[in-house]
């Protein structure tokens, strides 16, 4: 088995458990940054000299071979550039999901299989069941740490080669305790958060540096100009802060970004209730295992639209090439480019990249008028 070791607590314990389980394990640290010489500051940033060293020291303690493999070009092209391109197109990508899809469970997994490994072991909090009908992906026992959302993009072919040894761990505290017990110096290392390739956390600055200033109008839902902005890529649906609005809203209430339109360089703003979305749809669909047969005609599921959002009951069905998801209660802050991951109980059915959304009030109006669906 190939243990992907980031230098963090979770992947260290996962590798240790794989060794304990009697598998022949090789540790691999992925160098993802094109400048891997930098040092860590606080809990931000990854792929640093210290992370590589932390992973190496765990491998030393486990007595397993360890290598650093350079995936920085792939990471740049498939994750960083994709992130920039998606924002430029007015969508909101999830780079962690993309990294799992393209780097850890594609580039790395492919190489691992080619080199003769059976499985890739990571410290993700999720559970894979190798069922006779094919692999199934499930939520982890610790719902607070559950990472099944960012793995929702994996396919059966990928899942069959995955093992997540932390699946059944009740809490993260237990993983830290285990790391300390095993004598890993990294036991108390802070959790990484934010986007690893934006170590200062300034996403807007990062995008502005790459996409430059591209000023445009801010308009209300009726198309009236209410302000200006320095580039639509600095904004995400649901965002309230950072809007310079010269014209106050009629009722004086705060306004939020409702829509990002790169083609006209416009931001549409409006009241909070207009953010409520009832319908999500997209054509880029993946199934986490064998496709659920009932999805074609319609299936009651739960939908989750962000890594740490609560799942919401929904009805999902295929309409032509499109997967259409109607949530039973309105979702807020839904942006195109995000993944909507579908769950059936603890099981992940798959995901769709959101191409379009329909606001709750529009859908009500359209249904009252007898139309099948409003045009967004």
């Amino acid at each position: 088995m190939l243990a992907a070791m980031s230098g963090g607590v979770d992947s260290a314990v996962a590798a240790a458990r794989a060794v304990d389980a009697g598998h022949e394990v090789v540790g691999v640290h992925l160098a993802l940054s094109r400048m891997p010489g930098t040092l860590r500051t606080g809990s931000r940033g990854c792929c640093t000299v210290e992370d590589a060293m932390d992973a190496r020291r765990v491998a030393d303690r486990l007595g397993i071979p360890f290598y650093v493999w350079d995936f920085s070009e792939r990471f740049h092209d498939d994750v960083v550039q994709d992130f920039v391109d998606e924002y430029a197109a007015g969508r909101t990508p999830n780079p962690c999901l993309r990294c799992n899809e393209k780097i850890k469970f594609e580039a790395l997994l492919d190489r691992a299989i080619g080199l003769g490994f059976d499985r890739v072991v990571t410290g993700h909090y999720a559970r894979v069941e190798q069922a006779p009908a094919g692999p199934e992906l499930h939520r982890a026992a610790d719902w607070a740490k559950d990472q099944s959302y960012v793995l929702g993009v994996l396919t059966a072919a990928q899942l069959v080669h995955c093992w997540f040894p932390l699946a059944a761990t009740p809490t993260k505290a237990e993983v830290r305790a285990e790391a300390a017990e095993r004598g890993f110096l990294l036991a108390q290392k802070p959790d990484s958060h934010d986007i690893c390739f934006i170590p200062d956390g300034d996403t807007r600055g990062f995008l502005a540096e790459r996409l430059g200033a591209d000023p445009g109008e801010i308009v209300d839902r009726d198309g009236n100009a209410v302000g200006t902005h320095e580039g639509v890529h600095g904004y995400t649906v649901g965002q309230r802060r950072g809007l310079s609005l010269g014209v106050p809203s009629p009722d004086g209430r705060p306004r939020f970004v409702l829509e990002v339109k790169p083609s006209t360089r416009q931001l549409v703003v409006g009241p909070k209730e207009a953010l409520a979305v009832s319908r999500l749809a997209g054509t880029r669909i993946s199934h986490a295992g064998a496709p659920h047969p009932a999805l074609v005609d319609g299936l009651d599921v739960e939908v989750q639209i962000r890594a740490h959002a609560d799942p919401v009951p929904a009805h999902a069905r295929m309409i032509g090439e499109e997967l259409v998801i109607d949530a039973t209660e309105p979702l807020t802050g839904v942006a195109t480019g995000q993944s909507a991951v579908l769950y059936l109980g603890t099981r992940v059915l798959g995901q769709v990249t959101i191409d379009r959304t329909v606001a709750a009030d529009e859908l009500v109006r359209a249904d009252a008028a007898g139309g099948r669906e409003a045009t967004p």
Partner: protein
Amino acid sequence: MRLFDHAAATPMRESVREALAAAEPLANPASTHREGQRARAVLEDARERLAATLGAHPTEVILTSGGTESINLALKGAWWAARERAGAGQQPGAIVVPVAEHHATLDAVEWLERQGAQLRWVGVDAHAVTDHEAFAAALAGEPAASVAGASGGTASMAPASVATMLVASNELGSLQPIEPVADASARAGVPLHLDAVGAFGHLPLRFADTGASLMSVASHKLGGPHGVGALVVRRDARLHALHHGGGQQRGLRSGTQDALGASLFALAAEEAMAELAGESARLRELTGAILAAVAPLPGVRVLAAEQRLPHIAHLVVEGAQGESLQFLLDEAGFAVSNGSACSAGVARESHVVRACGVTGAAPLRLSLGRTTTRADVDALIGALPAAIGRARAL
């Protein structure tokens, strides 16, 4: 594990390990009491023996912590001295440096460039052999067509302040044109530094005969301990020190001297030179067998010059990842090198291979040593085709 990475570090010789195990405590060689005198005797004895193997005078041997320190002392020390001689507000002559040198050299001169030094880069051919005519032109400050990417343009045509070159490519093993380069340096009055870190102990080399002003060597490349090296400094060479302090070693390298390390280095060097003729013939045959076996494989290219270090067999594999190739060979029990790594452990693209005009190929340096047997080589020759084929299929 069969070791095919002797050029990174060759195992410590049995005699050296025995001497290390039998070592008695030594006082500080700078102490003037009898215990100090005893340590000083061990140190100077080692320096004299080392000087003899180097073809140098003991006074010329400055002991250091290894090749990197020696190279840094040579290049920074010479350029700082030249800058002082040039006087305030005056630009010292440029540094002449081939593009396929070791990173210790490249990073040192690039650091100096940020301190105001001018660099004159000299190109290499498809075997990583330095263009000696371009080197000679760069010494005198003549514009030469083959001076690649000369930084700072051709504004300064003054003679160089220092020049440097490998004795043999540390990656490919190709021997460098020492004679014409040393002659040209002498004619131009430019001090020449030879980087002999990877070559010392592997070919006949006498400092006094080279005509160079400075020469770097290291102990772990010929079976001595790690962390010991030397810079040979001709009496007339002008250098500033990197380390300041007690003024040891002509004031060029302050710091308490490592008498034990020096004596182990001397022992290893003496043995290496004593067995040189037999070992080079044996290793040349073995590396030749490896190259003859892999050269016909699809995607494999041999870049080294005909004249090369006897113990290095270097090849590049097109369409393969060096990381995968190394992993497969490591797993099969062969320790090989796929190039130098950064501090995080990422293998860097080889600037030497790139300088030979090859990109997108995985380099593989197979380096042999006195513990390598014919059976090791036969096993490697048996394993290489499958590993190369599999790495290319990924």
